[in-house]
């Protein structure tokens, strides 16, 4: 079983790969809309990649209003 910190680290790495930015440029409390300059649709695309990685389904409502990696990781953690 992953810890929340591990999940957060994996989410950061997946986001970095998906948007082709250096992994060390992203931090858990970053606002991903602002940091990556992405819109809500691009966020949904990133979520599909995250779902495949963790082997879970993350309903849209679970990520409604979430804008930082740490909170996103905690939503994923609760479904692992």
């Amino acid at each position, binding site marked *: 079983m992953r810890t929340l910190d591990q999940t957060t680290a994996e989410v950061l790495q997946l986001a970095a790969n998906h948007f082709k930015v250096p992994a060390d440029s992203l931090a858990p409390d970053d*606002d991903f*809309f*602002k940091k990556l300059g992405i819109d809500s649709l691009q966020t949904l695309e990133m979520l*599909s990649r995250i779902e495949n990685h963790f082997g879970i389904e993350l309903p*849209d409502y679970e990520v409604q*209003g979430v*804008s930082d990696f740490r909170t996103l990781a905690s939503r994923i953690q609760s479904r692992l």
Partner: protein
Amino acid sequence: MLDLSDYSSIGEALKDALETFAPEVCLIEADRDRENHRYTYRGFKQLALPLAKGLQDAGFGAGDRAAIIMTNQSKWLLSAYAVFFRGGVLVPLDYKLTPSEQWQLLQHSGANVLITEFPIWRQLQTAAGRSAAAGVRTILVSEAPPNADLAGAHRWEEFRGKGQPDFVARRRKDTACIVYSSGTGGRPKGCMMTHENYLEQCVALTSLYPFWPSVRYLSILPTNHAIDFMVGFFGPFTCGATVVHLRTLRPEYVREAFSKYKITYVSLVPLVLKNLQKGLQARFDALPAGKRRVFDALVRINKAVTKNRPLPIVSRLLLKQVHAAFGGELRAIIVGGAFAEPENLQFFYDLGIPVANGYGLTEAGTAITVNDLKPFRADTVGKPLPGMEVRIIAPDAEGIGEVTVRSKTVMSGYLHDPELTAETIVDGWLMTGDLGRFDPTGHLQLFGRKKNMIVTEEGKNIYPEDIETVFDSLSVKEFCVFAANYIWPQRSMVGEQLILVLRLEPGQTLTADLRRDIAGRNNRLLNYKRVHGVVLFEEDFPRTASLKIKRNVLAERLARLDRAAAVLPL
């Protein structure tokens, strides 16, 4: 289609539609690659009437208000029908608002019934505000896990009355819905929409973009939004068509739905349309040179043959693969909620996919003008719909002035706000606050706003006053939020941004700490509501005797500043 001139209310028309089109499929609910439900009009009725009886048994009747906070799904429409059947007033609320905003609007609307989904109910319980909305007596929650604590709410699935419910008739001028066009943080703008507003709007829209049995409408815009309520519920249902709901908006599943369900119409906000264009363009650019030349030639031929009007069959033959990706039966993409850029619209039209762009406001009952495609004009928002009188008042030398509308589709007013209603509807004309002019062929062109607000590409109306509370107690002398284009008009409806104007204390500077504080507060707002920059103003804000900021006067003074130099990015 039903002859809607024969009906007095939404409930009466829907009731007849469920009988008239009984064997047709009215609703498909899909989740990713699974199909959750498929209902005929007969099946829909059988599910909705026990719910209406349950509401009746709970004392719900004529004029009572029921709010729905749900994602797009079958229970949204089933619940709405049950509310209308009982003569109730529907309050469709945005599920994307924060829980405290939702409580605020529940209280403002005077709703006594709330119908929602378990995850939303879970969040509502954690937010303050329930006590203020004490009028909400009956709460129905769908899809709750078996052992979940519902905190006094009922399970939607079990809230069933026995026997036939009594249908409650309503008159055309009675309020059918209270639709919030904005105003969660400051002054809620609850548009009181009458049954007549919807009946007339439906007739006007379907005269240009008709529905019939076998038409399939993909419902992606939230159903609480005026557009989806009309073209994703009332319009298709009164014509015997099918609505397809998706429980996820992941682009890959949306793409799949087009071909899986052979979609006829879809409504999109400009942001999604842009995203679609980006994806298609990337695919075209990846074609080998030879194929690309052939493709470009086919697009040129399509453009030539569809110059005066769409020819769907010809376009589908010429650009078979593009159309196959959209299911092969797409007749039009309806674009609304915000201003769409002409090049974005033209891109799709050139591929043989007509884009029904238009212009509207919740206050005007959805659409005021729509492109009739005769011919397609990407540079305009189309001509007024039948029954709409549109006038430009106080035009300048170029003919640009405020767009005003008079029609049976215009709301009766703002709930609990006669003052704002009187400012907005003057002598029967709705003052839109948007600037436009008619071209010689009668098409409306828009050139910006007269009002201090922005509309995002996602179709969200944001009023500066609504987000100011997040900056309360900021350690500056004074602050105020503005739409940048209100201060410095751009003659454009795109790329609108909010700015925070600060009057610092004597000797105070914009330190790193202050910037951090502003950024932190800004991040508490939903991403589309955030301010994009800060302006430092060197004078005290002009105020009224009661110390309210004179926003118009302040805006005039700010306009003297150079925008590029004055706006400091956050």
